[in-house]
């Protein structure tokens, strides 16, 4: 069975896994500029490597409700694929570890890590309205 590396993150009480290949960097304490009139999923604008970075709330994107405070950790992630690829910041509560998951997990959209359910995020599709 093939495994693939995933970055395990925490969103509140739940866990999510992001494909390691899509994650450019994990950053913390980056300056976030909130944007008035922005959609609920946008945490704010930041700067990364000399470029503007839009930071979205991962929990929001995954459909989780009840977000109150700004997520402290930003996962700078490639969303989309090919030419459509763009760097977007994903706000999470905590970046835990890089771990290996079954390759099939992505298709499932979830996995179990240490007995706990983990949402496996498809970064190529994330944020695209169906």
């Amino acid at each position, binding site marked *: 069975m093939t495994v693939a590396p995933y970055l395990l993150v925490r969103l509140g009480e739940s866990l999510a896994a992001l494909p390691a290949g899509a994650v450019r960097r994990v950053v913390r304490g980056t300056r976030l*500029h*909130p*944007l*008035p*009139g*922005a*959609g609920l*999923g*946008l945490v704010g*604008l*930041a*700067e990364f490597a*000399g*470029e*503007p*970075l*839009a930071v*979205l709330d991962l929990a929001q994107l995954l459909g989780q409700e009840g977000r109150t405070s700004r997520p402290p950790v930003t996962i700078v992630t490639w*969303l*989309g694929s090919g030419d*459509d690829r*763009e760097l*977007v910041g994903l706000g999470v509560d905590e970046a835990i570890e890089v771990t290996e998951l079954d390759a099939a997990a992505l298709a499932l959209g979830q996995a179990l890590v240490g007995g706990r359910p983990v949402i496996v995020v498809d970064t190529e599709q994330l*944020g*695209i*309205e169906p």
Partner: protein
Amino acid sequence: MIGGFLIVRRAGALWGLPAERVSTIERVVQEGQGGAPGAPASNAPGLELHLAGGGRLTVDAVLTVAGNLRIHPLSGRLRRFLPAGAAGLALLAGEPLVLMAPEGEIPHA
């Protein structure tokens, strides 16, 4: 004004307006003093932009007219999360800003 973007601050965020959209900038006297239009980092409240095609826009400050901005056009993905009328993102002196399309409305706070 031709070309470039007028960089303004409004509601705590930086915005870039296509320069040709702004006909005049007028000081609206409320309190405090300010510099001449176009003076950078002015914090004087009550600046009114007279827009071409009518309409007014009150801004907190007018920072500069930037001509050589590296524009990052908004993807469809992100367009959803940004205000309507936003065309792209840029960076000015390390601070990210939203560039408005020529016909886009800068949202209120």
